[in-house]
């Protein structure tokens, strides 16, 4: 019975690894375009004001560098949580306003 449990765990983790690889590959191919457009910046401004103030004060875009906003928004996408597209809009707005 214990052996079956161990085999079951191994199969489960192997499946999870394969699934992660497939998901990672799919997500990598769906990376956003590098050049933002004004519409995306406007969407980001709206999403920033509607979502970020739900828990804390709105942070000034100038508080962090573009690189830091990359990381912070990626983190907040998971913490809030936020849909990926909305998180990208917010990041573009923050970096454009920086």
């Amino acid at each position: 019975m214990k052996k079956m449990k161990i085999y079951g765990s191994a199969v489960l983790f192997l499946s999870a690894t394969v699934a992660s690889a497939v998901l990672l590959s799919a997500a990598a191919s769906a990376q956003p375009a590098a050049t933002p457009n004004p519409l995306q910046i406007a969407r980001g401004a709206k999403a920033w004001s509607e979502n970020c103030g739900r828990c804390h004060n709105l942070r000034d875009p100038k508080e962090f560098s573009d690189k830091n906003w990359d990381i912070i928004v990626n983190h907040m996408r998971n913490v809030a949580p936020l849909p990926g597209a909305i998180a990208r809009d917010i990041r573009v707005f923050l970096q454009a306003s920086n």
Partner: protein
Amino acid sequence: MTTRFRLTPAVLIAAAVSITMAGGSMPANAAQSNQALLNRIQAMEQKLQGMEGMKQELQLLKEQLAKSQQTAKEQISTLQKKVAANQKTAQSATKEAFSESTRDIKWHLAGSGTVNFTSSNAAGAHDSFVGGTFAPIFLATYKDLLIFEGHPEISSQSDGSTKVELELANLSLNAADWLTLTVGKFVSPIGDFQQHLHPSWINKLPDRAAGFNEDGGNIALGEVGIMARGAFPVGSMIVDYAVFVGNGPRLSDEPEEGVLLEGFGGGDNNGNKAVGGRIGIRPLPYVSIGFSAMGSKVAGVEGSSGAVSTGSYNLEDIDAAFTKGNWDIRGEYVRAHVDSFNSAFDPAEPTVMIDATTWHSWYVQAAYRLAGIANSEILGNFEPVFRYSTQSVHGFAPFGAGAEDRWTVGLNYWFAPSLVFKMAYENRDFKNEPTADVFRAQFAFGF
């Protein structure tokens, strides 16, 4: 000795006088010719004088030109140096910008720092500057796909020692716009306060709500396991969800702490995993409602004698928030229940029967930033806060040691969006201890 004949003006004049004198006998056309010659000589002399002036003028111009050329050379040299310096700066800035924003792996150190002061009339309490807390959050990303979060918390203790705890350490994979997979030790997605509001620069008051404390009871703080989480739009709404499987809660070795839900990474102490999740709805940008639940089992601890058993543990939570303009109004209710089971608190002592116990905790809180009514920038940075919170415990008596009703009024001053000074007065009506009044002050900085 030879004498050279020199044609000097004196000779010329003498010749001219001779010619003139001789001219008395000369014909009239010869006199005219001499006069013409004299005229030409005078004209030539005038020309010579003019040329002399022009020569001086040319010399002057030549000197001026030389000076201008020298000045121009110096200016060009200065400009060349400036251009070279600017090119170097531009290259350096471009290299910096390129390297920072386009690297696949990036990292950032976030977190918060807090210092506190507390004054209480409770028996045995002293006015105290309560040691600072440093809570760094290390974040590292791989493209937009992976993010690692490591969060130790370092705080000084009343005995002079320093306490270091690993609050979080997890890896998240952004698998799709609506799905993130997280493994490791993560913040429990149960409820809203612990998940989003407990950092000192976000929490509107210097302390946590009653029952929403870190030392056990019924609040899920962290979990070690795997979590699927995400959010997606539904029409104009946003819906978020989280589902997790983890090691689950444990019984504390301090009876008054009850059951701990902190996320135990050193391995599970029973074979039953905790399963739980949360679903949140944001029907309007400024309204959010969340429902959470978790099911698990708590294992009894072996004692010197007596039976040991396991008790089922269930938790339900509902939270709501209204955050429009300068208003921040929110509340949360959490109920936890553990079935009866046998356990020891100290392995050297016999096990005891732990009665089935239910915890109820809830709070309501309202804060208003005066910027909504004050024209003054200074007045606008003030924020009065009110909170009522309560915890009641029914069942195993030692678990209810911390049960209380608490009123808190506070006043915050925001120096910056993440830099705040808070003052608060609390009235704590304990169920099993005398009532206490407490004043708290706190400086909190999030970065």
